[in-house]
C-alpha cells in the first residue's frame, strides 16, 4: 500500500505529511511532483497544506490547473483515497471535487491555534478508527478557512453524512465561540458523496506525536491504512 503527497509550487506542509505518514504511522509514502501525469501504484494521495501558487486570486484556485489534477480525477473515480488538508481542501473545492468554497476567515486574520473537533461521521475510510462524536484536539493554521455553501447544499451534506468534522468546544458543542473562522454550521471537514475524498482545514499531520502537543491526528492516517488494507472502500462514506 502506498501513499503519495502531491507537491505543488508553494506547498509547504508536504514534508510534514510525509513525515507523519512514513516516519510516524509507518506507511510507504512518496512525493509526487505537480506536473507529473501518473498516479500509478498509489492507493492514497494527500493534497498538502501551504500556499500553492501563492494562493493568489483565490486560495487553491490556480493549483487546480496543474497537470497532475487530470489524473487525480481518474484516481478518485477508481475509488482510491484522497485527503486534502488546509490548502489541499481549498484546491479540492476550487476543482469542484468537493462542494462549497473556503472564504476568508470572518476575523480577516490568519489564525494559528489548537481547536476542538467533533467526529460527525466515524464510518468514512478516514475516520473509522475514531468513536462517533469523539472530541479531538487539532491545530488550525489558515487565513481562508471559512466554509461556505448554499443552504440546500449544506442540508444535503448533513443528510448524507458528508460532514465529517465540526468545530466544537471542549464539551463537544458546536458553539459560535468554538468556530474559529465563521464556517457555515461549524464545518471543519467534509467528504464527497462517494466517501473517498476528504477535505479538512485542521492539520492532522501536525498532531501525530505527543511532543508536539497531541496525537489525535494519527488515527486519520491509520484509518486510511486500515480501510485500504481491508480493500473495501467505495460507498463507505454513506452512513
Amino acid at each position, binding site marked *: 500500500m502506498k501513499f503519495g503527497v502531491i507537491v505543488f509550487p508553494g506547498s509547504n506542509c508536504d*514534508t510534514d505529511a510525509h513525515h507523519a505518514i512514513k516516519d510516524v504511522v509507518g506507511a510507504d509514502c512518496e512525493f509526487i511532483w505537480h506536473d507529473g501525469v501518473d498516479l500509478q501504484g498509489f492507493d492514497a494521495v494527500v493534497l498538502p497544506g501551504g500556499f500553492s501558487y501563492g494562493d493568489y486570486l483565490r486560495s487553491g484556485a490556480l493549483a487546480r490547473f496543474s497537470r497532475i489534477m487530470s489524473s487525480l480525477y481518474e484516481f478518485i473515480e477508481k475509488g482510491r483515497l484522497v485527503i486534502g488538508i488546509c490548502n489541499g481542501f481549498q484546491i479540492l473545492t476550487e476543482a469542484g471535487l468537493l462542494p462549497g468554497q473556503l472564504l476568508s476567515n470572518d476575523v480577516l486574520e490568519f489564525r494559528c491555534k489548537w481547536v476542538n473537533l467533533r467526529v460527525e461521521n466515524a464510518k468514512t475510510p478516514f475516520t473509522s478508527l475514531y468513536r462517533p462524536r469523539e472530541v479531538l484536539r487539532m491545530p488550525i493554521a489558515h487565513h481562508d478557512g471559512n466554509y461556505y455553501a448554499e443552504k440546500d447544499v449544506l442540508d444535503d451534506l448533513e443528510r448524507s453524512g458528508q460532514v465529517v468534522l465540526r468545530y466544537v468546544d471542549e464539551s463537544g458543542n458546536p458553539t459560535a465561540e468554538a468556530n474559529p473562522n465563521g464556517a457555515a454550521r461549524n464545518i471543519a471537514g467534509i467528504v464527497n458523496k462517494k466517501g473517498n475524498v476528504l477535505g479538512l482545514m485542521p492539520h492532522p499531520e501536525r498532531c501525530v506525536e505527543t511532543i508536539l502537543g497531541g496525537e489525535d491526528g494519527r488515527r486519520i492516517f491509520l484509518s486510511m491504512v486500515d480501510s485500504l488494507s481491508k480493500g473495501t472502500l467505495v460507498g463507505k462514506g454513506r452512513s
Partner: protein
Amino acid sequence: MDIPAWKKMGLKDFEYKEIVNRLGREPNYTETGIFSVLWSEHCGYKHSRSLLRTLPTKGEKVLVGPGENAGVVDIGDGLACAFKVESHNHPCAVEPYQGAATGIGGIVRDVLAMGARPVILLDSLRFGPVEDARSRFLFGGVVSGIAGYGNCLGIPTVGGEVFFAEPYKGNPLVNVLCAGLMKHEDLHLGKAYGVGNVVMIVGHSTGRDGIHGATFASDVLGEDNEDKRPNVQVGDPFMEKLLIEACLEMMHKGVVVGIQDMGAAGITSSCAETAARAGTGLSIEIAKVPMREENMTAYDVMLSESQERMLLIVKPEKVDEVAAIGKKWGLHVANIGRVTDSGSLEVYEYGKLAAAIPVSLLVEGSPVYCPESAEPGYVSNNTNWAAASVKVPAKSELGGILLKLLAAPNIASKETVYRQYDYMVRTDTVEGPGKGAAVVRVKGTKRALVLKTDCNGRLAYLNPKAGAAWAVAESARNVAATGARPVAITNCLNFGNPERPEIYWQFKEAIAGMSEACVALGTPVTGGNVSFYNETEGVAVYPTPVIGMLGVLEDLDKHVSPGFKSAGDAIAVLGKVWGDGRSLAGSEYLASICGQVAGNPREPDLALEKGLVDVLVEGASLGLLRSAQDLSEGGLAVALAESCIHGEDGACGATISIGAIGCGGNPDHRPDSVMFGECNSAVVVSLAPDKEQALKDLCARHSVPLAVLGQVGSDKLVVKDCLGGEIISLATAEMADAWRNGIPRAAK
C-alpha cells in the same frame, strides 16, 4: 545652480573627492550611483565598522563568524545552524505591511545563502504606545506583513518581542531573525572563486523598484515618473518559496561554487561582495539580466532592489544544470557574466562599458568614521535620581499593582500577535511563542535549537552599557531556562543619528556592554546588523541593541518549560533579587505605575549570570527542575504570576514568603522593589520536594544563591512578607484575565 548627482545620491562632497582620488578620475553617472549605495551607511558600516571589530567573535563552535551572509555554529551530529537578525525599520515606517514582508524575505535569503534551509523566524518589534492610533496602524501592518510573508514560506515564526514606548512613535523598529539548518558539508560561501566561472542570476526579474529615492526625478527616469516610482518594494513570498527550494536543490547537487543573496543595492553589492571576498573581479552585461520593465539602463539594473533574487557563481560545465533546476521551479535564470582576475567590477550596458571599479574601493573601501562621543546630560541627572522620591506603596496596594503590570502592554500576552503566525509548520515546534524561549526539535536527533530575542530599550537608554549587557544576560537566561546551553548570539543595533555625539556615546557603551557579557557567558557574536538614523525631528529611538541568542538542548526529553507542574512542588528563586531602590531604575513598574523613566540601572553580575546558566543547564539534565521562569519586566511578582498562569491544571497557584530573599537585611530594601524591581539575575523554579538537596548542592557548586520561597498551590497566588503577613492574594484566573487581555483592552 542644480545639485551635483553625487549629492542627490547621498554622497558627501569629501566622500566624492575621495572617490575621484582613489579612482584617479571622475566616476561616471552609473559609477557614482554604485559608489553611493556601497558607501552608504547601510552597506558601508562607516560609523560602526571600527567598533564592531572589538566584538568577541571566536569560539570553538563557531564555523563562520561575521562578514558572511550569516553566522554558522556547530550544533553536533554533523549539523550546523546558520542564523542572523536584520532590521527593516525605515521601510516599515513608510509601508508597514510590505516593509515587514520584504524584511522577512531579506533575512531568509541571507540564511539560505549559507547553504542552510531556513527553518525558524523570530520578530523583535518596537512601536509607539498602543493607545496611539498611528502606532496601532504600524503595529497591525507590520504583524500582518510578517504573517503574510512568513506563513507563505512555511517557516514557523516561533518567538519574538513587542515593546511599546513613546520614542518609537516616529520610528518603529522591525528586526527579524532567521535560523537555518544544514549539514557541515553543505556550507556555502558568498565568494566568486575561479576565474572563468559563470555569474548567474536566479529568481525574480529585475524592475526599477527600490532604486535610491534621491534619483527618482533624475533625467534617467524623467520627472513625470517621480510619483510612480516610490521607494518601496512589494514582496512575493511565493517566488521566495520557489527560490529557496531551487537554491537548496542546486547546492545539494553541488552545482554552485558561490552564492549570494541580493539585498540592499541588489546586483551591485552582491557582485562586489562576492568578488571582494574571493579577491577576484566580475564582468557582467546588464542586457542579459531578465528585466521587468522596458529600456532599463545599467544604472537602473545595478541599483534595483527588486526582491527574491540570488546571485550564483557556477562552473561553466554546470550552467545547464543550474538553468534546468531554475526552470523546474519556474524561476528566471540567466547567465549575466563571468569571474575575472581584473579585481574590478566591470559592467557592460548593451555592449559598451558602463562602469569599471576596483572592488576593493567598493567593499570596505568606504571611509571609516570615529565620530566624537559625549555622555548625554540625562545620564548624570539619572545617576543622581533617588528612589526615595517614589513613595513606597501600602501593602494593600501591591496586588492591584501586580494586576496593572500584568495588563501593561509590554508585559501582557502577545497572543494577538503570534496567533497570526504559523508557528507550527514543519512539525518541530516543541515550545512556540508565548512561554519564554522557543524550542525547536532537530528531526533525526535528540537535540533541539532554542532561540530568544531580547532587549529592553528603556534600560539601554538609561544606561547603554548595562542595558546591552542585560539583553545578553536575559536572553541567555531565557535559553538556559529550557535546559539548553547558550552557544552564540547575533545582534541588531538600532540607534539614532551617529553623527550626534550623544548617540555615538550610546552606541559605544552598548558595544562595550555587549562584548563584556558575551565574553563572560562564552557566547561569541557570529553576525548582526546596524541600523542608524532611527530618529525624526531630533527625537531618537531608545538605543535598542537587540540580541538573538541561540542555544542547543542536548536531550529534548530533559526540556524544562515555564509554568508550575504539580501542587506541592517546592518553589525557589535561583540567583539574586536585589530588592533595593536601584532596582526600580528603568523598571516597568516605575514607568507604567509611577509614570517615570528614570534611574541608573545596575550592570549585571556576569559571574553570577554564568553560574545561573550552568545551574539551569545541569539542573535540567539531572532532571531536578519541573519549571523555570526567568525574571524580566515586572520582576519577581510577574515571574511568579506567569508561572501560575502557565501552570498545569491543579498547579496554577503558589503560596510563598519573600522572607527568604532576606528582606530587611538591606536597609534600602522596599517591598515594591522586591516584587517589581528589575535588573535581577534570577529565575523562579519549581521542583519535586525530594530534589531540594540536590539542587542546593548544585547551586553551591556554582556559587549561585538559592532561596526556597514556598509551595505550588492550585488556583491562587499568595505572597507573604517576612513577618508572615499577606501582601498579595490573587486568583490566578483574575491574573490570567488581566494578562491575556492587556493589549486588546489598551488598544481599544
